[in-house]
C-alpha cells in the first residue's frame, strides 16, 4: 500500500468513524424539537364560549409534548361559576404535566383569579386588579303562581328557595377558598377573612399579601414558565391559533341600545365575577 492509499484509507476511516456519525448525530439532533411555551389568553369574561376555547387550548397543550409550559395571560373580571370550575379542573390536569404561570395584565378578578390560583406562579403589573375572591348570585323571587304558566313543582319556575340559594352560594365560596389555599398555600400572608372579603387589590398590594408572587410582564412569565419547565431557547406560540379556534364568542355582558357594554351579565345565575360599578351608595 503506497502513501496515497494510506492517506485515502485514513480519510475514509475518519469519514466512516467520525464525520458520518457526526452527520448522523446532527440529523438525530435536529429531530429534537425546540421547546414551546404556549400562551392562553383570556381577555373576556369566563362563560360557555370562552371556557370552551380555553379548555380546547389546555387540551392541546396537554396532548402536544413540544409544549413544555403554558402562560395564562389574563385580563378578565371572572365569569360564571360552572365555567370557571370547568376550566379550573382542566387546568389541574395540565399542571400535573406541565408548569403553568399566570401573567395578569389588566385584571384577574374573581373567577379569573380562581384560575390564576391554579398556576405555579403569578405575575402582575403594578396596577393590575387582582382578587375579588367570592361568589355572587341573584336570588330567585319568592314563589308565586302565574295563572298562565303551569309548572310541576313549587320551585320549577324559581329553581330553589331564596334561603337555600343563599346557602349554596356560601358553599361555593368555600370551594373557592379551598382552591386559593391549595394553589397559594403559605404564600398567602393574610387571614382567611381578608382573602374572602371580596376585596380587589392592585398588583403591588397583591404581591405584598401573597395573592400574587411578583411584579412582572408577560415576558417574565414566559421566562418563568421556561425555567420551571427547565427549557431554554424556547419559542412562544399563541395556543388559540395552534388549537384552531376561530369562533366568535357571543356577548356575555348586557349591551345598551347605543352599544355601551355594561358590567352586568345578560343572564341571572351564579358568578365569580367582579362587577365594578356596584358602588355609589349614599
Amino acid at each position, binding site marked *: 500500500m503506497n502513501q496515497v492509499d494510506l492517506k485515502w484509507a485514513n480519510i475514509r476511516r475518519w469519514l466512516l468513524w467520525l464525520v458520518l456519525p457526526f452527520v448522523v*448525530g*446532527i440529523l438525530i*439532533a435536529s429531530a429534537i424539537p425546540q421547546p414551546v411555551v404556549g400562551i392562553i389568553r383570556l381577555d373576556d369574561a369566563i362563560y360557555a364560549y370562552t371556557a370552551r376555547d380555553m379548555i380546547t387550548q389546555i387540551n392541546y397543550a396537554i396532548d402536544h409534548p413540544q409544549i413544555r409550559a403554558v402562560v395564562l395571560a389574563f385580563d378578565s373580571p371572572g365569569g360564571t361559576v360552572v365555567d370557571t370550575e370547568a376550566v379550573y379542573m382542566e387546568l389541574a390536569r395540565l399542571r400535573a404535566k406541565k408548569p403553568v404561570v399566570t401573567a395578569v395584565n389588566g385584571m384577574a378578578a374573581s373567577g379569573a383569579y380562581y384560575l390564576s390560583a391554579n398556576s405555579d406562579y403569578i405575575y402582575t403589573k403594578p396596577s393590575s386588579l387582582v382578587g375579588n375572591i367570592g361568589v355572587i348570585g341573584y336570588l330567585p323571587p319568592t314563589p308565586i303562581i302565574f295563572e298562565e304558566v303551569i309548572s310541576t313543582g313549587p320551585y320549577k319556575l324559581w329553581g330553589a328557595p331564596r334561603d337555600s340559594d343563599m346557602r349554596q352560594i356560601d358553599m361555593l365560596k368555600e370551594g373557592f377558598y*379551598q382552591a386559593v389555599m391549595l394553589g397559594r398555600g403559605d404564600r398567602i400572608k393574610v387571614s382567611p*377573612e381578608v382573602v374572602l372579603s371580596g376585596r380587589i387589590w392592585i398588583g403591588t398590594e397583591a404581591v405584598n399579601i401573597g395573592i400574587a408572587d411578583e411584579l412582572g410582564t408577560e415576558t417574565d412569565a414566559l421566562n418563568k414558565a421556561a425555567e420551571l419547565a427547565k427549557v431554554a*431557547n424556547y419559542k412562544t406560540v399563541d395556543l388559540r391559533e395552534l388549537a384552531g379556534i376561530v369562533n366568535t364568542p357571543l356577548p356575555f355582558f348586557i349591551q345598551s341600545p347605543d352599544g355601551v357594554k355594561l358590567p352586568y351579565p345578560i343572564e341571572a345565575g351564579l358568578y365569580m365575577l367582579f362587577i365594578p*360599578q356596584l358602588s355609589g351608595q349614599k
Partner: protein
Amino acid sequence: MKKNMFWIALAALIIPVLARGFLYYRGVPNQPEIATPDYQALTVSQPPLETPNPAADKEEVKQINGIVLLDYAHTNQYQPAEVQSFSEAIEKRGGKVETITDATSLENKLKYASAYIVISPSGAFTADEIRFVQAFVERGGRLIVFADATRGVIFYDFSSGAPINYSDANAVNPLLSPFGITVNNDYLYNEEEHEGNFRNIFFDEFGKNELTFGLKRVALYGTHSVKSPSGLTLLRGAESTYSSIDDAHDPAQGAAALSEDENVLAFGDFTFLTSPYQNVADNATLISNIADFALGSKQTISLANFPYIFTQPTLQVYPSSEVQLTAETIGAISGLQTALSNLNTSIEVVDETPREGDALILGTFAPSDDLSNFTDPFNVEFDESGETITVKNFGDIGRAGNGLLLFDKNNKGNTLTLLADTTDDLISLLTTVTSNSLSGCVLQGDIGVCSVGYGGSFSTDIGEATAEPTSGEATPEPINIETTPTPTG
C-alpha cells in the same frame, strides 16, 4: 485501534444530540402533585332551628291586652304578611295590631295605643309626627323601630347606571334621635362565624333586660348597627362582627338598643321576624319578648288622651243635683252616647254618685255636697263672690264662659268631671268635649279649662243673636273619633 475509533464514532454521533438537547433542555421539571378542592365534601350550611317545644306551645301566655300600631304610612319597605310572627305574638297575648295607612290619624291613635311600631320606612316623618310620637313616649307609650339594611330603596343614576341606596336609617333617625338612639347607615357582618352568609350574623351577648330574657343566641339577617350612648345596647356582636362603614368592631354598638327611659326600642333588622328566620336560634323567644314589651306600655292616661281615657265598657253619666236634665242636656248627652258608641263604650245615666267604674260627672260651679268628692282632690276653690274659681296651677279663672275638666284615675275607675257656670255653659262644654279632642282647651295634666264662649248667655236657639260665639271659641267639628278604644294603663 478499532475500539478507539468506535468511541470516537459514538462521540461524534452523540455530541450534536447532546448539544442540541442542552441548548433547549436543562433538566427534568418537577411535577408537583396537583390537588383540587374536595367539592364533594362541601356542604350547604343549615340554620340552627329552635327546637320546637310542644309544651311551650300549649303554655298560656300572660294576657296583657292593648293595641299595637303598625306604621304603614311612610312608604314602609315591607309587606304586613312578612311580620305575621310578630302579629301573632301580639294577638296571643290578647293584644291587637292596627295598621296605620294614613299618617294624619297618628296623633289620635297614639292616644290609646300601647306601642307604635315603625318598620323600614322610606318616607320621612314630619316634625308634627315626631312631636306626637315624643309626647306618646313621654306619656309612657312605647316606640319600637325596626330598620333593615336589606330594605333600602335603590335608585339608579341616570347617567352612569350606578345604584344609589336610600337607606331607611335616613327616615328612622329623626324619630329616634330625641331618645338618644341612632341607626347607622351600614350593615354588620361577620366572616368568621355567620348564619349562611357573612351578613347574617349571630348575637350571643345581650344587655340585661327583660327583652333579652331567655336568649342564648339570636340571628339577624342584614342588620344596621344601632347605638345608644345613654341607653342600653341589647344585642352585641362578637369581636369578629364588623360594621361595613369602617370594617371595624365597635363594642358600643350592636344590632338593637333600648333608650334610657326604656320606652324606645330600635332594631337594625326586621328580617328575623319573617319566615323562615323567625324560628332560627332563639329568634322566636326574642319576638315573644318584643311582643311583651310592646304590650307592656305604662302609658299614663291623662286628659291629653281624650277621648281614650275610659277603660270600662260602660260609662256612668251622673248629672249633679244642680244640673237639670233639660231637652238640651239630654241632647248633649245623646251626642256623647253616639260618640262613645264608636269607641265601643256605652253610657248609663245614673242618679247616684258612682262609687266605682268609669264615670262622667256633670256639674256647675255652685258648691254641692255630691260634687265635693270629685272636686276636692283637685283643690278647686269657688270664690264666694261668684266671679271666679281658683284652680291649682291655673290661678283664678273667670266662671263665665269657662268650663273645667277634672280627670281622676284610680283603681276603681276613671272619672271625668265637667263643671261650668251654668247648665247652658255645661251643655256647651259637653258638646265641645263630645265633638272634638279638646284641641280648644288648655290642658295641664289632669285638669283642663275650656272656653265655652257664651258667658252664661248660651242658648241653643240658633236664631238668637246672642248665640254668636266670641273669639277664641273652638267651632265644634264633626265627630271624628277613631273606633276601637284601647284600655291601656
